[in-house]
């Protein structure tokens, strides 16, 4: 590598540089190159005139020595290849020494060196791009979820917002963990529920801790409410998906600030909306229809819990990732309470459960 670099310091390598020069670096640079190499040539000629007889003598001596070496060693036919190798190596070695010297002498003439640096840089860029683009590169990103939680459901009710989530953590399709808390408080007024990658959820909670800490450090009576947190999370999720490094979650943000109820949702690619009732994952298919039928603006706390339990029971029956251990969280102007984990009563002796393949010909 160094060898190649050093020999490139010579003016006759200027031909190589015509590519970049032609690419729009301008006539002036080319002109400078030409005049500089002219000047160098003149220098060379001048220095060549010095010690001229000595140089002629050395040239002849070199010619003689090379001939003699080749003839003597080459007399043994078997050695031909070996001798050729040695001679080539010697010539290259001398060349390297010579050119190294001349390079340092012409260091004031620096544009070829500059180009070489750029080349090196570009080579690095290409290497990086290669590793980014190759599918087998060692990616440092969460490309697939590992431990995941299933649906979360949130509803507004008379005094605030209620949210329900079970406590299962699935490793692929294995329900690996049974006590994962998937609803957390954010600041004074907000509640965050998450389904999807549990570790990404934990990272989001770290972001939010920073956010709330910085906000409260102002100590000026202003604080982020659920709307601000929701919008912030939307920006975070969309930003990460733009980096092709999404946080693999569907989030639900609920809260009350100054008597104003708020409930919204964000997906892993930044899709966001507000509604009176929201759900993630399977909940969208199994719980939302029930909520559309039965949700009212003036639900009491008891009615709200009952409605959530109905939805959770449905999910428990029909979502294979759901577990029968859930929490319900309530957030009002007074603050947040998350229930102790508890189970729902289930009844598995429905005819359809006992013989599920009846009427579903061909399934198992």
């Amino acid at each position, binding site marked *: 590598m160094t060898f190649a670099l050093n020999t490139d310091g010579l003016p006759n390598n200027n031909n190589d540089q015509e590519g970049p020069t032609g690419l729009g670096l301008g006539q002036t640079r080319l002109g400078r190159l030409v005049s500089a190499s002219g000047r160098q040539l003149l220098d060379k000629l001048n220095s060549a005139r010095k010690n001229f007889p000595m140089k002629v003598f050395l040239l002849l001596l070199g010619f003689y020595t090379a001939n003699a070496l080749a003839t003597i060693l080459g007399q043994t036919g078997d050695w031909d290849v070996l001798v050729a190798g040695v001679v080539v190596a010697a010539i290259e070695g001398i060349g390297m020494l010579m050119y190294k010297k001349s390079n340092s002498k012409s260091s004031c003439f620096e544009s070829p060196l500059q180009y070489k640096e750029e080349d090196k840089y570009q080579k690095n860029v290409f290497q990086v791009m290669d590793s980014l683009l190759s599918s087998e590169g060692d990616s440092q990103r969460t490309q697939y979820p590992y431990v995941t939680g299933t649906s979360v459901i949130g509803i507004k009710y008379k005094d605030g917002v209620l949210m329900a989530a079970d406590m299962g953590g699935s490793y692929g399709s294995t329900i690996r963990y049974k006590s994962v808390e998937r609803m957390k408080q954010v600041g004074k007024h907000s509640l965050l529920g998450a389904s999807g990658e549990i570790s990404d959820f934990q990272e989001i909670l770290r972001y939010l801790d920073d956010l709330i800490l910085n906000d409260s450090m*102002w100590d*000026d*009576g*202003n604080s*982020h409410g659920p*709307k*601000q947190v929701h*919008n*912030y999370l939307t*920006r975070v999720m969309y930003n990460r998906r733009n980096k092709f490094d999404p946080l693999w979650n569907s989030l639900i943000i609920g809260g009350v600030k*100054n008597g104003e109820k708020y409930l919204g949702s964000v997906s892993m690619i930044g899709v966001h909306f507000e509604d009176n009732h929201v759900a993630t994952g399977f909940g969208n298919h199994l719980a939302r229809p029930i909520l559309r039928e039965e949700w009212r603006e003036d639900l009491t706390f008891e009615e709200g819990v009952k409605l959530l339990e109905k939805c959770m029971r449905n999910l428990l029956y029909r979502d294979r990732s759901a577990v029968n251990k859930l929490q319900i969280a309530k957030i009002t102007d007074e603050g947040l309470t998350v229930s102790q984990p508890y189970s729902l009563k289930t009844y598995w002796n429905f005819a359809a459960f006992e013989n599920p393949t009846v009427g579903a010909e061909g399934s198992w």
Partner: protein
Amino acid sequence: MFRNQYDTDVTTWSPAGRLFQVEYAMEAVKQGSAAIGLRSKTHVVLACVNKSNSELSSHQKKIFKVDDHIGVAIAGLTADGRVLSRYMRSECINYGYTYESPLPVGRLVVQLADKAQVCTQRSWKRPYGVGLLVAGLDESGAHLYYNCPSGNYFEYQAFAIGSRSQAAKTYLERKFEKFTESSRDDLIKDALFAIRETLQGEKLTSSVCTVAVVGVGEAFSILDQATVQGLINEFEVSGEEGGAAAAVAGGGGGAAEEGGAAVEQEAAPMDI
């Protein structure tokens, strides 16, 4: 010839503990034409005097809308004022992008003050030569702040900056206790009266002043000239009817101004 040894560099202290360059910057605020601000519980009004440099030119804009809930009035170097209001606009819009809600006024003012402070502590910079009256509305109500080139900031019920502002300050000091409960229109009226004090007998017309309002249910807006003229006529503050009152107030204000200047000679006027 007298030459101050300690004023060639922003970061050099005088043995008396003063930073002359910073004080000169605050002096620049006093050279600019007057700007005043006052607030009630729900509204803030900004007003300023328009002075043109020559008979042939128009005057410079001295009140800027930063966002729907914030606006500023400036006195001093208008160019610096524009740079700072552009900074404030971008801070507001970035906050709005991230949180979909208005930036609290107090926070913007702190960021602005920090920006001004950096210029008093770097040898290769100069302090901003502009004072800003920042009017805004947020969760915690209506606010009026004054930002100084020294990096200091203060919250006020009512304040005036710029040339001959002492007269307006005197007027405001006499009246400020009732501002809290004032209606929007009463605030504007007091703003016009205060502005007239700074004119020293010159006739107040809509062409020599600009008025802007922000308040609950009302985005920051600069009142157009016809509206202002209408209000001047309605309140009869043009200065001719109340000529005697103006002369009295003007005289008092002048005395107070001299007194203030005398006081400022001794102590470092950092608290302005």
